[in-house]
């Protein structure tokens, strides 16, 4: 019977391929459905923004400023003078300002030039925080990944590309405790002057194509603002509203904007899944009807030859099993890579989604689809005259 099943599959491979494709699409749509836009990541975002209600930077894209300076994702290619930092500090007495200069990297991870205020709520696991230029503290994950210890010397890359293009030797003076914030765990932190010194060399060559921010001594990429005074917060926002060169952006507003995209994305994913599921079910149904008529011919022939009902069922089970093994393999590869592809594409556009592809869940769904299809086909085999 297995031989007959194999022969029938071989002769009807075109139709069975259509069937496999249809079932794979059903599994893909279920897989897509299990991929939800991650609220966790956005909660992380809120946690980060809670600390800094406002960010001041050169006028440009608000989203870019928040993404690059608050969430340390990518590069903001505009700078502001250090004098602006001194000015706001002087003007708004009840507010804390943290300067940021992000322009260098180590092994692809950003080196954040700032002051120790940025790390004040973070515990140091080994060593101390940086006190002067050329000293650096490293996040927990990056220290583990690169086996970095206090006293080690690392060479930073000028720019934020992944190519090593050695510029400045920095000494590790501290390794931070692991935090709940992946941004902190994966970056390096140094004094702002370290960044300025690196960028003060005129003869530095840049790797072609590498994103790079030109700095003169005294440049910052942004200023983070933290205050308990709502009055001053509103004052800062309104003062910068009219400014042509600089802007003050409410981080909460920007994250709320991301949330709206998140909701739209969720809805779009559900609709997309529904459409794929509906079309796939119709498609599988039509192909199944055709295959049913083909199997009916086989049943009739083997019945004329005197094959028993048991053998007919065995033949059906073999056919469905072979088909489902192929369905399992194809949809496993499709769902796994497809969902990764979708996650990559969405994240490229700043939409954070969680790929909840779970191998156990996949095999449960596949197993259910296998058993269901086997039951339906066996019932058909039993009822077929």
């Amino acid at each position, binding site marked *: 019977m297995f031989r*007959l099943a194999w*022969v*029938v599959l071989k*002769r*009807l491979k075109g139709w069975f391929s259509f069937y496999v494709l249809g079932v794979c699409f059903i599994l893909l749509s279920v897989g897509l459905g299990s991929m939800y836009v991650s609220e966790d990541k956005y909660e992380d975002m809120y946690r980060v923004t809670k600390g800094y209600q406002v960010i001041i930077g050169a006028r440009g894209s608000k989203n870019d400023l928040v993404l690059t300076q608050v969430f340390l994702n990518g590069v903001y290619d505009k700078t502001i003078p250090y004098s602006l930092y001194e000015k706001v500090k002087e003007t708004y007495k009840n507010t804390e300002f943290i300067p940021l200069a992000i322009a260098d990297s180590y092994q692809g991870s950003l080196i954040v030039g700032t002051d120790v205020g940025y790390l004040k709520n973070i515990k140091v696991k080994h060593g101390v925080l940086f006190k002067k230029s050329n000293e650096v503290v490293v996040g927990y994950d990056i220290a583990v990944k690169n086996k970095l210890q206090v006293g080690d010397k690392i060479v930073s890359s000028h720019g934020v590309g992944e190519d090593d293009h050695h510029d400045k030797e920095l000494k590790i003076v501290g390794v931070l405790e692991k935090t709940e914030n992946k941004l902190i765990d994966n970056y390096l932190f140094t004094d702002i002057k370290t960044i300025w010194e690196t960028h003060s060399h005129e003869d530095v060559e840049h790797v072609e194509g590498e994103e790079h921010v030109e700095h003169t001594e005294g440049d910052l990429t942004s200023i983070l603002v933290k205050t308990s005074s709502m009055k001053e917060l509103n004052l800062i926002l309104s003062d910068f509203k009219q400014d042509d060169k600089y802007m003050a952006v409410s981080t909460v507003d920007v994250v709320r904007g991301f949330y709206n995209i998140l909701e739209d994305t969720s809805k779009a994913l559900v609709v997309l899944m529904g459409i794929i599921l509906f079309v796939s079910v119709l498609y599988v149904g039509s192909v199944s009807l055709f295959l049913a008529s*083909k199997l009916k*011919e*086989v049943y*009739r*022939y*083997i*019945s*004329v*030859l*005197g*094959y*028993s*009902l*048991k053998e007919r069922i065995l033949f059906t089970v073999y056919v469905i099993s072979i088909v489902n093994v192929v369905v399992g393999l194809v949809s496993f590869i499709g769902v796994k890579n497809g969902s990764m592809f979708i996650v990559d594409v969405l994240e490229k556009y700043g939409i954070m989604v969680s790929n909840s592809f779970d191998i156990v869940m996949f095999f449960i769904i596949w197993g259910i689809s296998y058993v269901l299809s086997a039951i339906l086909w066996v019932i058909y085999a039993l009822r077929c005259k």
Partner: protein
Amino acid sequence: MIEVKQLQVVFKNKSIRYHDMVFEHGKSYFIYGDSGGGKSTLVKHLSLLENSDAISYNGVDFTKFKKEKEKFKRKNIGIYLSEKMLVDDLTVSDHLSLVGKVDYEKLKNYGLLPLINTKVKHLSSGEKQRLGVLIALMKDGCYKFFDEPTSHVNKSLSDMIINGILDNHNKNKGITVVVSHDLSYKHLFDVVINISDVCDVVEEVV
């Protein structure tokens, strides 16, 4: 010996009641008659394709022994119903391999050797018919039933098919039943039956 006792088949718009009859070992039967007269229905019942306690083989009513019936059918009965019993998407070779070892000499005689790897859907009606008859003849056993085995072939191929069936019958000395409209062959058979003589068809008003 196949015995038919009180066989009655009910359709939507008619019922057919067969007279009691006996098909004896060593004899070949030729059944002819009008279309819709009950020839094919009788063959389906005789060949155990339909379940009925009105048919018994050597005194055994197989409706009470389903497992045994399957085994018996598989081992002893060869059937040609029509070319529709074949599977369009399987090849000639696929069909034959399900029956047993392929007899290339017979395949050649039936003009099917060059078509061995051809799917049935690409065969002509005559080729399908020859394949169907060959399948029934290839089966072991001494009970053979052929429903219109020569309807789509020319005279020489018809002769070859009928001779093949009778040769096979002479070898196995079983029971061979051929249903045909072509009366030119009836003299070759031991028993000739006009279907209208052995059954009553009652048309029912729906």
